[in-house]
């Protein structure tokens, strides 16, 4: 399948899915009012689309920055760092405006991702699977730290909201922060070439005249902001950033300038499918999209881990 065709197919599928998503819900099709569509259904579709695409893009970035196929922000400590940041704001400055909360959360996410990057630098390059493993444990330790603090402060229920992603709370006026994430993810496209070069390693990047440290930091900031915004508004959705870039890279290679739009489209479509499934499987109740994606994503991941990689065309 050629690249252009794939983009059109993904776009068409996405539009069809979005329209379908507008009509999936407890209130039946005949009683549907414009107000309902405007206040609840449309924001939900938008939130899903933005989250899916932004997470997929930040996953692709992270994989370039760490130079490892099997990492993504939600499982290697960035997401947990974001949760830690929100928790700290809630504990020490509960009155702070939402933007300040988000800012500190992004800062914490950046800190934990820098820590992860520092650990990865010390790992031997001969063991590529060690990186995601260390990342999972590192994320788990930060997660346990968050749980510890939350337990002491009686905020466990609060934490659950950020730890498991769900779109049922999305209404007009409660998801708009996500547009910021969409903006940041879109901005990274301007530096797509630079990120592709960073993916070739430090020596190659410097050889090509790139300010390596600057680009890596820029990428990490973008990833942290996107992750923090997602965690603040809808909660963690693991594996989106992992499976989507992997599938795209297997089919179309690693030139981010060419593949990033497709990554975003595919991520949005996959999350939207899972969200619609979550609404339909136990109708009229809902299964959180994080849970549905947990099942779908892990199965795809296992396939990625064991299926022999064919060369990209």
């Amino acid at each position: 399948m050629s690249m252009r065709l794939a983009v059109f197919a993904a776009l068409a599928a996405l539009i069809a899915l979005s329209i379908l998503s507008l009509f999936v819900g407890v209130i039946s099709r005949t009683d549907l009012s414009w107000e309902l569509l405007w206040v609840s259904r449309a924001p939900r579709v938008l939130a899903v689309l933005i989250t899916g695409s932004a997470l997929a893009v930040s996953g692709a970035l992270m994989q370039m920055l760490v130079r490892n196929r099997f990492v993504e922000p939600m499982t290697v400590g960035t997401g947990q760092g974001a949760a830690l940041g929100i928790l700290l704001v809630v504990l020490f400055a509960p009155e702070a405006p939402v933007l300040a909360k988000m800012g500190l959360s992004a800062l914490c996410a950046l800190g934990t991702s820098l820590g992860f990057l520092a650990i990865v630098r010390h790992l031997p390059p001969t063991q590529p699977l060690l990186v995601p493993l260390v990342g999972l444990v590192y994320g788990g330790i930060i997660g346990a730290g968050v749980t510890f603090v939350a337990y002491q402060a009686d905020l466990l229920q609060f934490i659950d909201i950020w730890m498991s992603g769900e779109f049922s709370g999305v209404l007009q006026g409660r998801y708009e922060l996500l547009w910021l994430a969409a903006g940041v993810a879109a901005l990274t496209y301007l530096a797509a070439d630079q990120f592709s070069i960073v993916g070739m390693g430090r020596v190659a990047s410097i050889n090509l005249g790139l300010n390596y440290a600057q680009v890596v930091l820029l990428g990490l900031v973008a990833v942290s902001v996107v992750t923090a915004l997602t965690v603040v508004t809808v909660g963690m959705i693991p594996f989106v950033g992992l499976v989507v870039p992997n599938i795209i890279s297997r089919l179309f290679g690693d030139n981010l300038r060419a593949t990033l739009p497709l990554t975003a489209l595919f991520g949005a479509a996959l999350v939207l499918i899972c969200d619609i499934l979550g609404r339909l499987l136990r109708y009229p109740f809902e299964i959180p999209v994080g849970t549905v994606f947990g099942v779908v994503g892990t199965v795809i991941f296992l396939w990625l881990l064991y299926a022999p990689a064919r060369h990209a065309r």
Partner: protein
Amino acid sequence: MHARRLGGLSLILLVCAALYMTLGARGGWDFILPFRGAKLAALILVAVAVATATVLFQTITYNQILTPSIMGFDALYILVLTLAVYVLGGQTVARLPQMSQFLLTSTLLLGASLLLFGTLLAQRRQDLMRMILTGVIFGVLFRSLTSFLQRMIDPNEYSVIQVSSYARFSRMETELLGIAALLTIAALAATWAMRHRLDVLALGREAAINLGEHPKRGMLQALVVISVLVSVSTALVGPVAFLGLLVVSLARLITPTARHAVLLPSAALVSAITLVGGQTLLERVFALSTPLSVIVDLVGGAVFLILLLRGSGR
């Protein structure tokens, strides 16, 4: 040397147990002793079960980083229990006698683990990192499937599963104590009986065959024992991710030997000290509300990270 260290560990455990029973006691002894005694017994049971299962698992995988819970065993247990409730209905499962409930879940767990880990472990050319990663991902998959199924279950029936879904040491299912003790003792006896064979199995496949041991059979027997022990500990306190790794690594430091006759009791003692002593400190001294499992996971996770980093450097 090992005998003296084992003696020292037993002494520490006795002190911890005595402190756990007596510290901060208010009210009549005839209430406190049975009340705390049951909890103490449960703590020790779980500690021994987790430690033994971990040692067995590390022996049959020839590896000192793997543990049943890292490979997703206890997540699988909860999934199996949830599946049983989903298919048979919560009332049916709850009304089963506890013995058959245990046996049902243990058998299902054994079947599932043989299917999954049997094929995984039997691979000739083993890629350790890929195997651990697979186990971790399986753990996530099982947990997601469990919470998925739990959403499909009637809320009233959900209570049957809820107790084993979260790790906790302060409120344990002490009604299960009798049966759990029976099963654990049986499993421990089986392990103790095969301790010398375990020494041989740990040498590796070729050496074991040379010495007249059947590696596949040994692995199968060990997996049966592990399934029983994991069922017992998860049913009593829920999943504890890094406890086994933490205590067995400590035991290997305290009594550096490959002989299971020493390693098994040493790991069991360290594990019991960690749980009883940790719980005493947490509940009675610091009066923290955080469950011990969170702290064990924090410390154990750090140990795991260090082991991984050091192991990869070599």
